[in-house]
């Protein structure tokens, strides 16, 4: 409806919105599909009145005003129904008559997205399309200097270790004394990072675990997936597939009583336990699963009543110092599985990562350190946290690795890096860069959602409505009317595609380095970048 009345500061026009709808009257057949599909109801049927005026100069009596009504698709201008650019309208249009496009100027909506004093919250990713990882090149190509390997012909063992690796003499001593040695898992270096059952839809989650299981059982790739904080379905806890799963414990402890109850019935130990202290997308902030997403199913898995808000505070409640927090949590989690399962903390990328790492080096139980950089994604966070908080992953991982080198422990505590890997589609290249900077492996989330489930979110603030339960692809919704758009089997198939393709690409990168049996962790002489300062900072070659 057009505005006729006093305007308020926050009444916007279409020109002020970030996404505009292009609609073609000629092509449109008024089938209603776009309007029915739009996740935010940004469009409606418009009734348009066309005035046809006839004013012949010589015959005043023949002047006429005729009004004709015609129909079409109309975009709404009010902020509550602002187009998110997801393109579902275009997807369902039989005639290609509609498509959203980005407003060329900075939208005005962003100045009014805090109505009621509530700052903008959303899901998705940092609205910054750039990534340093993409600028890192692999400059060491061994042709005649080292035995050159052929990615297609040679056999590769692209595995990494998750767990505390003791120095050989220590290991031998303990072996002789029959002492306890830390559990170590040999896993695939590309790990699916923590995305909870609840943040993701049941079909998405099942698809991911199914794909992971397929990769393990049909293709022999020891791929692991982290649950995120939302518990773990009881059937999975009691199945042999549990060994492919990293259980996450975070500040809300959701689902953990259900996990504890399942321990006596477990056929297999989980791969590892990840203690989440922070998340790259919203460092220092907690999470909140809104009540409307907490249906009976989510409630059962998390061990709570349905339709209540589920807050995860920014911090764990009973931990007061780094020594205490880390030691206490790691001990407790080891104890739960009789010291057979590696336990490691995950922190958000931070300038204080070294302090955490140094603490871990002194803790003989610490199995790894996982760092989630600023480019990590999330189902829901404050925009300010997402866009402005956190530490880039590359230098964080690099600093930690070089510190381990200084301590002579670079082979003892694996560092896992996450956040923005494959942000622009270059999954294997980004992963390899991070590995050569010193990561033992990487964790990915958003890339998996985009590749395995068709997430349309982007760094240009497209879609990014994971938090409202209306995900156009059914990835982050708990409403069966939406998430049934996603077929778990197809997700699993795509996940398998992703890992197989990643595997080939990773081989294409490491083969010319002459590596086939161990990952080139910290092999930074193979890296170069065309930015002098970045090169200096990362201690890699400056190449132009």
């Amino acid at each position: 409806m057009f505005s006729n009345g006093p305007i308020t500061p926050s009444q916007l026009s279409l020109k002020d919105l970030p996404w505009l709808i292009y609609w073609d009257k000629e092509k449109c057949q008024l089938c209603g599909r776009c309007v029915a599909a739009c996740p935010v109801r940004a469009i409606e049927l418009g009734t348009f009145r066309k005035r046809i005026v006839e004013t012949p100069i010589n015959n005043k009596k023949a002047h006429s005003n005729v009004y004709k009504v015609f129909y079409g698709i109309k975009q709404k201008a009010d902020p509550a129904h602002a187009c998110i650019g997801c393109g579902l309208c275009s997807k369902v249009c039989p005639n290609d008559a509609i498509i959203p496009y980005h407003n060329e100027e900075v939208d005005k909506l962003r100045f009014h997205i805090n109505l009621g004093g509530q700052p903008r919250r959303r899901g998705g990713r940092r609205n910054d399309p750039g990534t340093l990882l993409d600028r890192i090149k692999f400059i060491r190509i061994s042709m005649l200097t080292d035995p050159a390997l052929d990615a297609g012909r040679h056999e590769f063992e692209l595995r990494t270790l998750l767990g505390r690796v003791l120095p050989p003499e220590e290991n031998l001593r303990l072996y002789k004394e029959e002492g306890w040695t830390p559990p170590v898992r040999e896993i695939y270096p590309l790990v699916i990072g923590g995305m909870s059952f609840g943040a993701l839809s049941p079909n998405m989650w099942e698809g991911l675990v199914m794909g992971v299981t397929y990769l393990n059982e049909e293709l022999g790739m020891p791929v692991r997936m982290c649950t995120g904080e939302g518990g773990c379905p009881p059937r999975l806890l009691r199945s042999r597939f549990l060994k492919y799963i990293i259980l996450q414990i975070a500040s809300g402890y959701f689902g953990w009583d259900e996990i504890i109850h399942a321990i006596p019935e477990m056929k297999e130990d989980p791969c590892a336990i990840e203690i989440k202290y922070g998340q790259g997308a919203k460092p220092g902030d907690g999470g909140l699963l809104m009540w409307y997403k907490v249906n009976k199913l989510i409630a059962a898995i998390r061990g709570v009543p349905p339709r209540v808000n589920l807050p995860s505070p920014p911090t764990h409640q009973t931990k007061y110092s780094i020594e205490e927090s880390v030691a206490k949590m790691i001990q407790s989690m080891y104890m739960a599985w009789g010291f057979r399962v590696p336990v490691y903390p995950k922190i958000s990328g931070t300038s204080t990562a070294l302090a955490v790492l140094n603490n871990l080096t002194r803790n003989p139980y610490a199995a790894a350190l996982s760092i989630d950089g600023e480019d990590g994604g999330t189902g829901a966070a404050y925009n300010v946290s997402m866009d402005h908080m956190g530490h880039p992953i590359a230098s964080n991982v690099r600093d930690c690795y070089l510190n381990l080198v200084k301590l002579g422990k670079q082979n003892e505590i694996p560092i896992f890096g996450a956040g923005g890997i494959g942000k622009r589609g270059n999954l294997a290249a980004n992963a390899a860069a991070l590995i050569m900077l010193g990561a033992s492996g990487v964790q990915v989330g958003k890339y998996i959602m985009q590749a395995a489930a068709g997430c349309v979110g982007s760094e240009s603030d497209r879609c990014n409505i994971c938090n409202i339960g209306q995900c156009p692809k059914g990835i982050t919704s708990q409403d069966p009317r939406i998430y049934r758009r996603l077929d778990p089997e197809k997700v699993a198939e795509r996940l398998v595609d992703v890992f197989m393709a990643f595997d080939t690409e990773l081989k294409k990168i490491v083969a010319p380095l002459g590596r086939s049996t161990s990952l080139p962790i910290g092999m930074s002489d193979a890296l170069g970048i065309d930015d002098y300062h970045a090169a200096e900072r990362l201690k890699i070659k400056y190449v132009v």
Partner: protein
Amino acid sequence: MGQKIRDAYYIPGMENGKRVDSRILEERIQRAVEQGYRKIEVEAYGQHGIGGRLWKAGNEEVLIYITGAPGQRVGSMGFPNTKIEILGNSSDDVGWLNAGAEIVVHGHASNGIANAMAQGKIYIAGNIGARGMTMTKFNPRFSHPELWVLGSVGDYFAEFMAGGIAVICGYNPQNPENVLGYRPCVGMVGGKIFVRGKHGPFSEKDAKRVQISEEEWEWLTNNLKVFLQRINREELFEELSRYEDWDLIVSKTPYEKRAQGLKSMSEFYEKIWCKELGKGGLIGDLVDYDRSPIPIITTGELRRYIPVWENKKYAAPCESACPAGIPVQERWALIRDGRLDEAVDIALVFTPFPTTVCGYLCPNLCMQNCTKLKYNMSPVDVTLLGKASTEANPPKIPEITGKKVAVIGGGPGGISAAWQLRLMGHDVVVFDREEKLGGKIQKYIPKSRIPEDVLNKDLERIRKVISHVQLKQDIDKDKFKELVAEYDFVILAIGAQRPRLLPVEGKEMLISALDFLGKSKRDEIKPGDRVVVIGAGNVGCDVATEAHRLGAKEITLIDIQEPASFGKERQEAEKIGAKFMWPVFTKKITKDGVITDSGELIPADTVVISIGDVPELEFLGEDIEIEKGFVKVNEYYQTSNPKVFAIGDVVKLGLITDAIGAGRIAATAIDEISKGLEVTIPKRPEIDKQRMNPFFFNPRLVRYQDVSECASECMSCGRCRDCGICITLCPQAAISRVSLANGEFELVVDGDRCIGCGFCADVCPCGIWNLVPNDPVC
């Protein structure tokens, strides 16, 4: 060492105790061929590439015998005219890039045998090392290259093999457990490998085992004879020619490679996933609803939103604004249906003054709240309908079955209450101290605003309904007590009759507005040329208009603030040239006029005070609570004495229509109380004006010609016009109109067709359809 082969031209690889350079040896072999030698013996000392490139002999066959220890790449780039026999073992890459030569190695050969061979044949009497038959080709211009190995082959055999035939006889192999070596056939895209004897796995991604056909077997056995004859082991033929000992490995076609023989995901789901987790997979134990894939566009239960036909759920803005609660939009609907009489009559359900008030005296709040105003369009003109209501037929008057009710005051409020009560079957008596019914309308409102015959018409009808009217009845304290005791209920509707005055010098010279209007209506007053009205409200405006009618030429209305007058009264006053002044404070009144506090004189022959009136309440007993000079009531106009109700100006100064509405509510409350019911004041919430669609209506329509134009241009907010636009527009043809028994109708949606697009809600001119979220599935 010396020459070993008879008749051959001998080229030694060692001369004077010094090894001949590969380049020199090559020159000597080429020169010998050029000179016509066709049988040459080379005694080799590790020289490179012996026996290749002998094209200078043209089509003539050249035989090369190699004794000693040849270097790498014997027969490389060999021509079809060349036959090479190595009498002992051989080094790497025999027949590299062979283009047709036949090469026999009578001993073992090391790595890279036949690498990149495209034509020709290589016969090995022993075993070979790693990477044999790799990168071999088949060029359709020539026949297949062949590699024959009596024993076994080393690791990575046939990598990237792209053509040719390899035959591994497995006789006396280096490793009897595996004659094919480790990881053979990686990247193989063409050719065949016949293999005899035990062998390990090969790259099944690239190659496959097939049955040896009759034709192939014939080829193998025929050529096996040739091979054995070349290496002088013909005695082995029988042992090596048992069909069951042989396997044939061929490359997969690109198509076969695409289908990699992996388990499909649906097979995995059934056979692995659900077998371990149970039926329904990951959460089959926790949910009982279907989770199978659905399309984006869905119908029925799977729709995210569903349309609801909310006909008459909300009050139209006109109805909502009308204090008397008249459903104006319904009256226009009746006219659209051709039922003008009913449209007129229905007003009487809500008001006894359909013409007087709706047509003349009311500021028409209904029109002020008309949705069309929101779009700068003229509101539907209800006064046309009001004026058309003079002949409205009163409803049927029921028998008296209810309570006895006394109504004190025969103005619009009292009449409204009495009218309603009588029509509910109660016994009502109206008491009024005047000679005629009608209160202020009768007594004070100028004839210019309400023609006498119009008012009389309404009053006539009223008298037919309310038969018990006692006029000229002054109610004092005792009489009131008596009435309260005698009647079941008493309704106070005495209005506000006592003018408020100003405590200024000369106040005795003021004439009150009501006094003035009463007298002017009877033409009993001559105001003179100049009139000042203190208080510029609507009553003041009426005074001004009347003063003008009575000959005043200079009329001034003064007020201490911006005048609150509005509507017709104000317009009329302005039309006759009355002057409005504010803020003006009155200091005193003199015979010359009004002196303001600034000392200015506003000359006047008559000064009228019109700053409001207050009720006269002295006769009420102590049990009726008074607040700031007015009777205090609850939301249905009951006073602190439950038997006594109060309505109209005695409660709060207001419009005539406010008093009429209050009368109806008080009457309804009394009816419900007398029936022992709880008092309800039903009022539908007003419809959100956003819901209506204005684009079907003419925005240039300024004045409505008649009631039928009003009816057709009414947006019918919240009440279905039965226009059928939604039915036509629904892309799924999901909406249909169903006639109901009582002559009504409804629109119903076929959920199995509807996709929840909301076109119906978006298009509806009347805002009936509402698209609401479907009930949650879980």
